[in-house]
């Protein structure tokens, strides 16, 4: 599904990622953990194609295709989805209108018929159940005036509607109270399937109480310094990130 090799990324001339190797197979859930400033968000944004992030070395292949040769919207249409840590307000653009445009663009790319207004509403209502969102959200401008929890649920609703093959969640758990965290996590669990892979980026392991990852990686100083199974997350929770020395060479815990 995704194969990242020796990835180096800079922002405004400063190198943030210093050689990432990561392989994600279909249906797997990978958690990437690490302290603030370790480069977690950079990794998610460069995969989605944010123009401020420059790849200086290395590669990322998605379903055998060079991801960095694809423009932002093309990646999305091919099934790469990023749930933003800070979803952007789009004033004056109605949520339903935005979602319909996005869904129909991806449908077109997959050779499917576009949905008309009625069909889309039916389709969306089903998806809204997954994140327990009520219909009033649809007529509000995208993310404008949404609470932190509402924004994150809106991200997962988009995930559900767009049905990507590779979903990257950037600190989706941050800023959520325990109820919202449950709803969001439950939503993700319902969206798991053997063809869909997830990369969950998170600072804390609390989301992993609800979503069981297949692999856990520790990202520090722009490198993956440790990889392991679910237990690694518990250990990190218990001992803190100091326990992993950033200078350590990549190693396997188990």
């Amino acid at each position, binding site marked *: 599904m995704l194969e990242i090799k020796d990835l180096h990324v800079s922002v405004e001339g400063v190198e943030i990622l210093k050689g990432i190797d990561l392989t994600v197979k279909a249906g797997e859930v990978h958690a990437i953990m690490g302290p603030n400033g370790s480069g977690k968000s950079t990794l998610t944004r460069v995969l989605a194609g944010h123009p401020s992030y420059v790849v200086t070395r290395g590669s990322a292949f998605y379903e055998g295709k060079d991801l960095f040769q694809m423009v932002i*919207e093309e990646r999305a249409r091919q099934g790469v989805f990023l749930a933003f840590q800070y979803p*952007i307000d789009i004033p004056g*653009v109605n949520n339903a209108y935005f979602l319909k*445009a996005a869904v129909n663009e991806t449908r077109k*790319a997959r050779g499917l018929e576009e949905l008309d207004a009625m069909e889309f509403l039916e389709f969306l209502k089903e998806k809204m159940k997954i994140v327990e969102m009520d219909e009033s959200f649809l007529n509000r401008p995208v993310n404008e005036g949404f609470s932190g929890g509402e924004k994150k649920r809106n991200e997962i609703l988009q995930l559900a509607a767009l049905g990507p093959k590779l979903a990257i969640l950037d600190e989706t758990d941050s800023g959520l109270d325990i109820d919202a965290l449950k709803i969001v996590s439950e939503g993700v669990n319902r969206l798991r399937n053997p063809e869909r892979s997830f990369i969950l980026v998170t600072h804390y392991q609390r989301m992993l109480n609800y979503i069981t990852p297949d692999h856990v990686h520790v990202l520090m100083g722009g490198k993956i310094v440790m990889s392991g199974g679910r237990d690694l997350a518990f250990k990190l929770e218990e001992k803190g990130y100091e326990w992993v020395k950033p200078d350590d060479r990549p190693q396997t815990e188990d």
Partner: protein
Amino acid sequence: MKQYLKTFEDLKKTANEPSWLLRLREESMASFARQGFPMLQNEEWRYTDVAAIRETAWDLEPAVPELSPETIDALKPRSGRNFLLVLNGKFLREYSSFEEGLEVADLEGAIVLRPDLVEPHLGRRAASGNNAFADVNAGLFKQGLFIRISENFIAKDPIRIVFLAQAAKGSSVFQVRNLIVAGKKSRTTIVETYAAGNEKSYFTNAVTEIVLEEGARLEHCKVQGESSEAFHIATTQVVQRRGSSFVSFALSTGSCLMRNDCRVALEAENVSCELNGLYLGDGDQVLDHQTFVDHQKPDGKSGQFFKGLLAGNSRGVFRGHVMVRQDAQRTEAHQTNKNLLLSDTAKVDTQPQLEILADDVKCGHGAAVGQLQEDALFYLRSRGIGEKEAEQMLAQGFAREVIERSSLSFMKETLLELVNEKLKQQLCSRS
């Protein structure tokens, strides 16, 4: 200038007009002769250069051509019984229709037949001695439109007026003159649309005077969709009596150079006025909006909300002047102007001006100029929406706010359609 003064002398010889009108014309032309057309040194015109108008030898007395039935059909609105057609400044009664309760006539006729209604208002404020274009209009207009809305009358449909410019040859100037008197407690909506019948160059010089009697409510929408070869200079002078409310929306998309002066005199207590505007420019367009909201008496409210989207080498200007006179206690006046630049070469000048002489008032203003946000574009594109579509969506969202916020409910869909059409052109020229 000579040409204008000579035309006026000729007009005087042939016109058989009441003495009050002749006096108005004399005074206006004398004022014009003193000051001439404005230069950039003139504070009120510092952002907009009218050299192209000043230096063109205009045909000051263009003919009014025959219109084909197809042309007229194409202009008629899809619904509503009130449609008024003005061609090259002349009101065409035979192609117009309106509901009972409205008195509609050509202004030249009303001057003779209804002097009681026309004389007290015509040119009383618009030709205020500091507006050369309004002066020329007062001196040289030959035709116009007169609308009187009866007391207590509530119009069922909006009054849609199309001002069609159809120049027989290039460089024609059309003096458009309108007088609208909204009777006590009447409620009406008026939509003025300016459009061109062909691609020849012309100059629309319009003056619209609006009087709102006590308790009247008037919604006024002006759609300036002139051809790209046109100059459009317009003054809208509004007078508000006690308890009246005026809501306006100016959508400006057309012409190569436009200047819209909207002047509102809140002459009595408890008056409210809401001015909204949206200007969308591309190519080398210059779109200039000026407002003057004059609070003269206590307990008035005014709100102004203008937005601009500028692409290519286009320029936008917004100068909003709010005056709160000493008498006008407990005035609430707000003004906002926001602009989005869609290219590196587009420009905007925004200048709010509050002049407050009363001490118990609530006033505020704000202005902003920005560009499409990179993060917002990234967000939309990361959902599979193409770059162009994402830009269009953001720009549309920006424009939508002013339309949604205005109290003109019935026009919203039409305005959005017009905006989307123009936005496509603007964004095409972007890459």
